[in-house]
Structures are given as structure tokens and as C-alpha cells.
């Protein structure tokens, strides 16, 4: 993962609350088996609308998304984070994030910065008054700066440290492999295991057919 210290880029005001992950990336795009190449899928349903903010030239190169509360609700799809990243977003700013989305962002190096709704409104006004205006996000100082305005943001200390160091979670956990092995020895023997597989007798399943056929 790349280290994240500060980022400066075009701010995109997205005046919507409850932007769920089905809006960020519709399910039809989840069939891919790669980890990249999702930029075309971002906000796919909305991008068909000429008035949608990312269809306006000034905002097309956006890399800092400023959204309404409860961003990223719904499905656990990490594809939502990949789509934002693949499009070019480095930071999403909102007053509240859904837990799974925020977790996924942290794993993938997308900064989910929590800013009060009051300050979001100020950022929206600045970005709308001057389309294409840049925002600077400093993870070091935990601040968002847009022109004369500088506002603080919140982020979990540990996530911040990991992002700044660019560290991978699995590697960190495997440093404690001995402790995992010790824990496994304490598990009750009746805890279920999927293998060897147990199930009721296998039966042939009839295929349903189209009604018209």
C-alpha cells in the first residue's frame, strides 16, 4: 500500500445523503474477478445523467469527494472502494460513514475523513462557487483546507498510522502467528468444522424451467 501523508486535488461536492454502495457501484459490475479497472462503474446509474456532478468538465478530474452523511451504507462490496480509487479519488469526506465502507477504505488506502456536517456545508459552498477548486487534505495534521478555510477531520489513530506507514494488515497479523496457534489449542472440540463435510443425503434437484417454454 502506498504511504499517505497529504493530498491536493479537485474537490467534488456531492449533495446527497445515504449514498449507498449500490449507487457507488451497481451490482452488475461486481462480476469481474480482477481488483482494478472499475473506474467506468463508479456511480454508473447517475453518470447517465448529463447534470450529474462528475459529468461537468470542472469536476471530472476530481480526487476529493465531499459527500452527505451516511456515505457507503448497504452492501459490504469492497468494489465500492476500488471504483472510487480507480476513478482517481484519494479522499472521501463525509460527516458519517457506514462501518464496513470505512473499514474497507482503510484497507485500500482510500482516506475516509469525518468532517462535521456544518463544515461540509461550508466546503460545498466553496466548491460550488468555484468549480474545479482544489482541496488539500493533510493526514499528518488531520485537516482539510479549501482556499482560506481550514477545518479538522477525525480518523481512527491506528488507521491513520497504518495509512501513513503504508502497512498491510495480513503481514502485521502474521507477526502474531504463535498466539493464533495457542488460541486454537483452547477451542472446544465440539466447535463445528466444515470438513469432513456432513449433510443430509444428496438428492437430485429438478431444474425449474421458464414458464413460457
Amino acid at each position, binding site marked *: 500500500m502506498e504511504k499517505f501523508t497529504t493530498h491536493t486535488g479537485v474537490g467534488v461536492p456531492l449533495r446527497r445523503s445515504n449514498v449507498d454502495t*449500490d449507487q457507488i457501484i451497481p451490482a452488475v459490475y461486481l462480476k469481474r*474477478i480482477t481488483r482494478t479497472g472499475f473506474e467506468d462503474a463508479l456511480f454508473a446509474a447517475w453518470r447517465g445523467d448529463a447534470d450529474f456532478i462528475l459529468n461537468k468538465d470542472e469536476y471530472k478530474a476530481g480526487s476529493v469527494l465531499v459527500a452527505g452523511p451516511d456515505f457507503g451504507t448497504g452492501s459490504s462490496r469492497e468494489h465500492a472502494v476500488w471504483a472510487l480509487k480507480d476513478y482517481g479519488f484519494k479522499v472521501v469526506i463525509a460527516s*458519517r460513514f457506514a462501518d464496513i465502507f470505512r473499514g474497507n477504505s482503510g484497507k485500500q488506502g482510500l482516506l475516509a475523513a469525518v468532517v462535521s456536517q456544518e463544515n461540509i456545508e461550508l466546503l460545498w459552498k466553496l466548491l460550488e462557487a468555484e468549480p474545479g477548486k482544489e482541496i488539500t487534505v493533510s493526514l499528518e495534521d488531520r485537516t482539510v483546507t479549501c482556499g482560506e478555510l481550514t477545518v479538522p477531520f477525525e480518523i481512527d489513530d491506528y488507521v491513520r498510522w497504518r495509512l501513513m506507514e503504508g502497512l498491510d494488515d495480513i503481514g502485521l497479523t502474521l507477526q502474531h502467528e504463535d498466539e493464533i496457534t495457542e488460541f486454537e489449542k483452547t477451542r472446544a472440540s465440539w466447535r463445528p468444522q466444515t470438513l469432513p463435510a456432513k449433510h443430509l443425503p444428496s438428492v437430485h434437484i429438478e431444474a425449474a424451467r421458464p414458464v413460457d417454454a
Partner: protein
Amino acid sequence: MGTTLAEKLWTSHLVRKGEDGAPDLIYIDLHMCHEVTSPQAFEGLRLAGRQVRRPDLTIATEDHNTPTLDIDLPIADETSRKQVNKLRENAAEFGIRIHSLGDADQGIVHVVGPQLGLTMPGMTVVCGDSHTSTHGAFGALAFGIGTSEVEHVLATQTLPLKPFKTMAINVNGTLPKGSTAKDIILAIIAKIGTGGGQGYVLEYRGDAIRALSMEARMTICNMSIEAGARAGIIAPDDTTFEYVKGRPHAPEGEDWDAAVEYWRTLTTDDDAVFDTEVDLNAADLEPFITWGTNPGQGLPLSANVPSPEDFAEEADREAAANALEYMGLTPGTPFRDIPIDTVFLGSCTNGRIEDLRAAAAIIQGREKAPHTRMLVVPGSARVRLQAEAEGLDKVFLDFGAEWRNAGCSMCLGMNPDQLKPQERSASTSNRNFEGRQGKGGRTHLVSPLVAAATAVRGTLSSPDDLVDAPAALV
């Protein structure tokens, strides 16, 4: 001071306490996989030269992409077929048990786990799917994870996590006939909002919850995520033990006794304190539906389409206006007058045998509204077999409904079962997001009883609206 059930489950799975702000390392007892959120995780393992640490605590099923017709033919959609094939290849390469399309144990991952007896009280259960919260109905700490976390669990059988906050949802009183677990959870989400549960494990408590069957409890826990919660949980009791007993992976003999003895300790202590508490009187509930484009935008079926002006907050007014436009609804219209094109009975929320029985009891001997289509999709192949053994398939087919094979189906637009633009559904699934059931599709979330009555009348309806009260409600 005592501890809550969620805290007990956390402590009993603690491999390592985090220091200096680092998260705790939590052991995972069961990891379920499906084709959509796992390919990139397996690819990550391969690239790093890592193995699956515990294939014997991992299981995979095919559900999201799979068709519910012609399941013996190759999957027609090429990208879907590729993704399903990738899961099969990954399962073979890493030695993971898989139940593929056509197998009697295939089905929606959250229906299959409990049915095999793999979900038990006191466990930690994860899956790359937000509706993993379903398994909390057994008194397990169960939650959805992203693909990076799927890879993490495959490699280490653990997850680094920060402790969750705890919220008690106390539901007391007797649920009126015609109202169901679905109405309870829709009412809870409407009350606390789609963000109200953020950061929390919701523990559903109270005599109305105790009175529910396991399947009804699964419906409630399933939709915890729609309130933004990490997980939902219900303390196990005799109802739980009865449900688990005798299932393929349930402990036997002395192991069973030891397990039950432990499971009985899995309750919130009387003197434990929750971070937040919410109360709901079940006796006040009536059939509930959603009118908007998030699951918090719900009202009783007896109400009318709201107006944006009804909302105090500017953000809510805007959200309501957007939702009404997308849904094609006019404020003031009685919900009961809204015509429905398609009724969908199924999903991990309401695709179990009790849901099918409840709907069948309503429609038995009645005729389907001519312009309304009804799709009945069992949550798993075993649910389908059970329903057929009880003759429910005949009831649905005689009524004019379509009787399908198991899968996620119309809950999400990833397989052939989709709404057309502006087509309106009454759906027993869990999400009414824009485009969730197909681009431009309009979704009203409902209970299986409302779904069945709606298919009879062709407009949003409850069983009370039917001529001759259904036998099931008398």
C-alpha cells in the same frame, strides 16, 4: 458490573489484546464464501504465496450470480459464469468445501449455514456479505466483511477489530396477527434510521423476541445492517437449541451436553449496561412497508405516501423528494392504492420454509391478480425440497406464481431475475436502493404476508384486506 452478550463473545474470541490504539485480534470460528466477494481475496493469497489457514472452518456456496431457471445448463451470462467458475477453481485449489449449483446443499450462504448446523451459539461468523448479521439470531457474533478482510481471514483465521458499542433493542408486548418479524425490523429501522446502528452490535431483547421462531429471529438479525449496525444478536434459548439439535454438524452425545451447558451462559448479565437502549411495543405494530429508496423510509401500510414537507430536517426533505421522484409516487396516495407489477418472495431475509408456508397459507385457494407477476424463490435447494414435500409448490403454481430454484435471485440485480426500468415490486428482500433489483426498478420492502396478499389484490395489501379472512389469521 456485568457484561453484555456481545462483550462475552468478544472476550471469548480474543487472541490478542491491541496495545497503543491497535485493534484487538479476534478469532473467527466460521468463514463463509460466495463467488462475488472472494475472487480478489484468493488472488491476493496466490500473489503473496499464502495458504488458507483453516479450510476446515471455511465453506463456499454459489448464490448471487446463479440463475433460478435452467440450472442444469451452463450459466448464460459470460461474466457470471466466469465468476462462478473462478470460485470452483479457488475452492479446488485451496481445499475448500463448496456447494455448487445443482447440489442439494446449494443456496444463499445465510440460509445454508444454519441449515447445515454450522451456525451455533457462541461463535464468530464472517462472510464477505453484509447480511452475515443473520447468524446473530443464534447468539453468535456475525458480521459482514470486505474483500481485504476475506483475504485476511483466509490467511490468518482472525481479524483485527476495534470493539463495537452495544445497543439494546427491547421489543415487548404481543405482536398482532398479520404482523411479523419483518414488520418489527422495518419499524426499528424507520425509528433509528439507516445510520442509527453505526458502530453498534444490536441485541434484540424482550418477550416479543423470545416468542419468535428461529427463522423469524434470523429475519430480524438479517436486517441489522440496514440500520447501519455491525451486527445483530439474540441470546440463545431453548428455541435455539431445538433448532440446532440433530442438524448435520450439530454436536452429539456428551459434546451436545457440554455445548448446551456453555450456551446457557450466553446471556447479557442483569446488571450489564448497554451504551444505548431503544424500546418498541410489538402490540403497536401493523404491517409495515417502505415507500422510498432506503430501508429507513418506511411507514405502516395503512398510511399514505408522505410529502417531503412532512420532514423536519432539510437533508430528510431532500432525500424524500429524490426518493419520491425515483419511485414515481405522489404524496397523499394511500399505500393500498399502489399497483404492483411483481411480487418477489425469497432472499436471505424471507426465503426460508416458514416464510413460504406463511405466504402459501394466504394465497391457498385464491387467484393471482392478472397483471401481477409472482416469483417464489426458496433460499436454498433444501428449502425447495422441503416445500415440495409439503405440497407448497403446488399451492404457488396453482395460484399462478413461478416456482424457482434457489439463490439470491431478485434481491439484487446480478442474475437474470431483474426488474425492468420503472417496474414496481413488493419484495420480501432487504434493500430498496435505487436500481438494487434492476436498473430503474422500484422496490417496496414487505413481509411475506403482505407479499402474498399483494399478489392476490394487485396493489399493496395486507391479509386483512382479503375477502374471507385467511385461515392462517383466524
